[in-house]
Structures are given as structure tokens and as C-alpha cells.
């Protein structure tokens, strides 16, 4: 079996709160963070609901103590905010003698500024510092510099499963002894680009999203960032660190069915869950809660539901989608939900799937709609992305 990977710190900023505590409180009080877009102008403003962080970029810059003249995109700002929290929560002061790395993830990187200055860039020198903030690696570099990490820095972009894959690669590097600790997660800011992209695919709901409901109309987009600190068992022992949970299993598979749609029988999702269970050395009945991908699009929820039935048979564990709280935060989603999975284990609670009232006609699966308190040893978390990218993580009690 692989060496265990300890999770010793978490940090998060989402539309339901700027800290782990605030996110937990919102989840326990069934308080979603879905609203209209306020931070930028879009003609879609009144036709969609989003999970927007109600802090302006200027406010984030001040909270991070950055100089007013900078070239941080919102993606980088959210990322720095959450990553700093994660490092603090792990009780780490950087730099130090441990080999420390970061793997971040994002879907559209600095698109929020690119779409603002795209044409102006050509002849307005005052905005040109943002030109190099466009690529997906920029936010990771900004976070690494902000935290003082000089070693292994990389970025993953596999659409909506990105952060799960960043966590997976981080675990691999720790297990292989390539790093002592690594900060892993993802960040994504709302942008006109993504809003209009999802709109052309006709998978945005004009109401609050209803994951796993028969009458679901599509997803609500969101923005967020979240990071975990992964450490090797040796470092944990040596530093006498408190372990929040263990990352015990992971799996990635490809649906190889369609560039954006999931297969009818959820083949990729099923394979990812099987792999993760195998890596964790767990049988399906040992999973206490599943934080499903559950975007509330007609296609995802049915495909994922079928995959759940294939992986768990007649005894699918309690499951819920937390996307009705936060919106679908794309590349960051798996990191957000990793934090919620850890909170579920530590607080012995299953978070509710909001807005659900009618089971899907095709399959007999009902998500957990109320808070349930019970001991939970293992949580399985799914995240799926365009390009058939299917990822599963399993978190276990420390």
C-alpha cells in the first residue's frame, strides 16, 4: 500500500464565507451564497444566479497587504487568500528547511482581466502589466511568490476536475518522497467568458440550481479558491503535527465519450470511483458520505447517478451535492468540496443537498436533504470535467 498522506491545513474562500469556520457555519445553517453578479458588468446579469464572493478586487488587495500597483488577477487574489489561510492553519512559517511545493489549478486563469483589457492592451501601457497574467500558470506563480515557495510549482487544468487532479498529483509527490509538504487546490474567478460559454451550452439555470432533482434546469456558476496542505507521515511525526484527515484514495479516468457530455452509464465516473476505492483499500460499504459532483445539469446528475449505482449497488451511501450553496466553482470545485469532505469527517455531519424535491424519474436515488449527525470515517468526493475527465478523492478520519 502507498504511504499515507496527511492533511494538516485547509483554507477556503467561497460565496458562503471567507474562512473555514464561515463556510461550516453556512453549511450547518443551510445558508446558500447564491445571488446576482455584482462585481462586473455582464448582459447576463438578470438571467443567471451565481455564487459570487462579495469582495471587490481592491478589498482583496488590501486584505492581502499587496501594493496598490500590482498585476494580480481576481483568480490570483482569491488563490493567495485561500492558500495563505491553508498555510497558517497548518502552522507553517515559510520559507523553511522542508521541501515545499504547490500545485494549483484553474480553468481560465487570468481571463477576468484579459476580457477587460483585450483590445486596450495593444496601446495602453498602463494596463500592459496584466498581459503576462493571462496564462493559467500565472496565479500559481503569484501564490508561490506570495507564500515564498521556490521549489516545485506546477498547475493543472482539466476543466471542472482540475483541483482534484492537483490534489492527486500532490499526493503522488509526497508518496514518492519528492516533496515533504505540498499545497494543493484550485482557484477560479467568475468571468464573462465562462458565463457566456456555459450559456451557449444551455446548461445554466435561471433559478437556484436543484442537484439530483427531476426538474433540474442546469447549474449556477460560482467563484472560489481552496487549498489543502499535504504532508508526509515523517514530517507529521517529526513536527508532532495535528492531522485533520488523511487523503487515502484517488483515481482519474476518462469517459472517452464526448468533449463536453458525460456518457449515459457514467463509465468514466464509475472507473474513477473504483480506482479511488482500490487505492484506499476500502470496500464500497466503508464510505460514510459521498460529496457528489452534482452540478444540477440534466446530463451530469443522471450519468453520475448511474455511476453511483454501478459502484455501490443497492446500498448507495448518504450523498449530497453542495453546489446549491456555492455554485459550480469549476477548477476550484474539487478543492472546495475536499474542504467540505474534511469538515464532514471532523464534525461528524452530512451536509444537505438544497433545493431538492422530486427524485429523478430514471433512477431511484434520493440525496440527503437535511443535516444528519453521525460518525463518518471515509468520505468520497467526485469531480468531473469537460473532456471526459473524471476524478474521485477519498478522505479518511485521522
Amino acid at each position: 500500500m502507498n504511504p499515507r498522506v496527511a492533511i494538516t491545513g485547509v483554507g477556503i474562500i467561497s460565496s458562503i464565507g471567507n474562512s473555514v469556520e464561515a463556510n461550516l457555519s453556512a453549511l450547518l445553517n443551510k445558508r446558500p451564497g447564491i445571488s446576482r453578479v455584482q462585481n462586473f458588468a455582464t448582459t447576463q446579469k438578470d438571467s443567471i444566479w451565481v455564487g459570487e464572493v462579495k469582495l471587490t478586487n481592491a478589498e482583496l488587495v488590501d486584505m492581502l497587504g499587496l501594493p496598490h500597483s500590482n498585476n494580480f488577477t481576481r483568480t490570483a487574489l482569491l488563490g493567495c487568500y485561500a492558500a495563505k489561510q491553508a498555510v497558517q492553519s497548518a502552522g507553517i512559517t515559510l520559507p523553511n528547511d522542508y521541501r515545499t511545493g504547490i500545485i494549483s489549478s484553474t480553468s481560465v486563469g487570468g481571463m477576468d482581466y484579459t476580457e477587460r483589457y483585450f483590445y486596450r492592451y495593444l496601446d495602453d501601457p498602463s494596463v500592459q502589466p496584466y498581459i503576462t497574467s493571462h496564462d493559467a500558470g500565472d496565479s500559481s506563480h503569484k501564490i508561490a511568490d506570495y507564500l515564498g515557495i521556490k521549489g516545485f510549482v506546477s498547475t493543472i487544468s482539466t476543466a471542472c476536475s482540475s483541483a482534484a487532479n492537483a490534489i492527486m498529483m500532490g499526493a503522488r509527490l509526497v508518496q514518492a518522497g519528492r516533496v515533504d509538504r505540498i499545497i494543493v487546490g484550485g482557484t477560479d474567478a467568475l468571468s464573462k467568458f465562462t458565463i457566456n460559454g456555459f450559456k451557449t451550452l444551455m446548461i445554466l439555470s435561471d433559478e437556484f440550481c436543484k442537484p439530483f432533482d427531476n426538474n433540474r434546469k442546469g447549474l449556477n456558476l460560482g467563484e472560489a479558491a481552496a487549498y489543502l496542505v499535504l504532508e508526509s507521515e515523517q514530517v507529521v511525526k517529526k513536527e508532532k503535527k495535528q492531522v485533520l484527515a488523511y487523503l487515502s484514495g484517488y483515481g482519474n479516468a476518462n469517459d472517452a465519450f464526448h468533449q463536453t457530455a458525460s456518457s449515459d452509464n457514467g463509465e468514466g465516473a464509475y472507473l474513477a470511483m473504483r480506482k479511488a476505492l482500490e487505492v484506499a483499500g476500502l470496500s464500497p460499504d466503508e464510505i460514510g458520505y459521498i460529496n457528489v459532483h452534482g452540478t444540477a445539469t440534466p446530463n451530469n446528475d443522471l450519468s453520475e447517478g448511474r455511476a453511483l449505482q454501478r459502484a455501490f449497488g443497492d446500498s448507495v451511501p448518504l450523498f449530497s451535492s453542495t453546489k446549491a450553496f456555492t455554485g459550480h466553482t469549476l477548477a476550484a470545485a474539487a478543492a472546495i468540496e475536499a474542504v467540505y469532505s474534511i469538515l464532514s469527517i471532523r464534525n461528524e455531519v452530512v451536509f444537505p443537498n438544497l433545493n431538492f424535491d422530486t427524485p429523478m424519474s430514471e433512477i431511484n436515488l434520493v440525496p440527503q436533504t437535511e443535516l444528519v449527525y453521525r460518525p463518518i470515517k471515509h468520505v468520497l468526493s467526485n469531480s468531473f470535467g469537460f473532456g471526459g475527465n473524471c476524478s474521485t478523492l477519498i478522505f479518511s478520519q485521522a
Partner: protein
Amino acid sequence: MTPQGIWRPSFFEEAVPIDSPITAAIQPSYKALIPPALIRRMSRGIKMGIFAAQQALDEAGVSTPEAIIVGTGLGCSEDSEKFLRTILDNDEQFLTPTSFIQSTHNTVAAQIALRLACQGYNFTYVNRSVSFESGMLDAMLQIHSGEVANVLVGGVDEISDHTYSLLQRIGYIKPDGVNESIKTSQTQGVNYAEGATFFLLSGERTAESYAELVDVHIINSVGEDEITATISGFLQGNGLTSHDIDIAILGINGDKAFDSYYFPVQEQLTNADVLYYKHLIGQYDSCSAFAPAVAATVAKHGAAQPILRWQGRPQRPVKNILLYNQYRGKDHSLLLVRTC
């Protein structure tokens, strides 16, 4: 897939150093690989990735790999720009999904998987000039741990007009009208291009094997005065000293401000024949994916083609090959390749 055309036996004999600020990769016919309707719809990056991936699989005699990993700095930039222009030019009206769908960074890896019906591990790294090397490291770890028997790994980046013109505007790419090669470079910036390079890594040596990938090291930030110590540490970890390196393949790109990183390395590797390659394929985020192709060829043939030589040193039998790349002083990568 390069500005010199596709990978072929006579590649280095026919190659001519590029001296334009932006050079497109010569496109082959895609008819044998991709249905005509898709050829029209797909960006060059997707097509180049599919083509190079298939070439690597064909050389290795593998029909479906167990995992697919792609590194790309800017991803599907052409479709990104196309979709963004439509949003901006039409005030968020009259949009169609195709360019959005294809704009996702993992489109190349996904399309290769779709074509090959490959349901295995599928990752895309997007971290500037270590995008490809992140993929090599991931693949190597999975082969070493026995998770998979083989992995298709590649790097791909495509030219997109606006993005490249912005990089010219800030001096990363040489201005239009300047015609300098790496060796004659006097002005700021470098010659950019596009391309795709793929490899099939396998846990087993086969009759087709070119060389062995021994180790990969990635470091985000290191000073010019620290680079030789970093290299020594890397070599030491692999039981070697700087005198053991027979060939050094360096990412020299003609940028006066940052090529200085490579100078102390040439002094350090006393016995190495120093090679470069960006004069043939240009700079782009995943261009360093071409360096292992150079290493593989040299390993197989036992000597470097004259056009690759940066600094003439007495050649000796080839065993250990060190690859070092960085871009603008950031995202350093070291690969160790050995003849097998």
C-alpha cells in the same frame, strides 16, 4: 510537429535555423487521421497534438496507451481568442459553443483519448515552461510505482494572433522586421513558434526504445549563482558528478537577459558536448518537449548532428545526457537521459 515539418529520419539534415520573430509549424495533411468536418473545426493545436501523439504511438508500436498526459502553456489559445472576440465584439450576443468547448486547456488530451477510446488517466499541466516536464515527472512516477505500464506524454502550444502580438508588445517576442537567429541575436526578446512533441514512455525496454528517462527535477525559482549547485545536487541524487555528463542539451533561446543562466552550466559540465535546439523549433511554453527528442536521437545514433552543436568539444561515447531549460529565469527543469 515543428517549423521544420514533422518528425522524420532526415529531420536534422534538412533543418534550417529560423530567424523570424514568429514562425508557424509546417502543417501536414491530417486526412488520414481526422475526419474532414473535424479538420475544419479543430484548431492547429488540437490537430498537431493528435498527429504527434499518433506518430509516437506508431513508432512505439502501441495502439492505446494506459495514460495520456499533455503539457501546454497557453492551451487552446486560438479558440479562446475566437470565443472572447465574439463576446466582446457582439456584446455577449450571437455566440455559438464550438470555440468555447474547444478552448478548454485539456482539449488536446481529451481529443486524443476520444480518438483512441482511451479511458485511462488523463491529465493536462499548464505551468508555463515546465508544463511538459510536469507531465514527464507524473508519467515517470506512475511507471516507477507500477501503476501503469506505459504513458503517452507530450507538449503542445499553438500560435494565436492576438496573444502573440501582445507578447511582442511587451518585448518577449522580437519585433516584426527583425531577422536574427539565436546565434546572431542582438535585440530584446526571442523568436517564437509553435509545435507539438509526444513520447511514449514505457516501463520496459523494447526493440524500439530510444533511451531511458532517468530523472526529472522541477524548480520554480533559482538564482544564476545557484544553478550549478542545483545541477550538482540533481546529479548526485542520481549517483553522478558533473564530469559524467557526455551531452548537455540546453534551452538557449537568444534572450541576452536570461541565456546567462546557461553559461556557468557549460563550464560546470567539463566533458559535455553542448547542444541547443530552439534555433530549429523556436520558443514556446512547451518547446522544451523537443529536447528529449534530441536526446533520444543522439542516444540512439551515438552522436549529435552538427546543426545541434552549440559549443564544439571533443566528442566521446554517449551515456549520460543532461537537459536543462528555463524561461526568463523562472520554471527551471532538469532531465537526465541515459542510453539504453
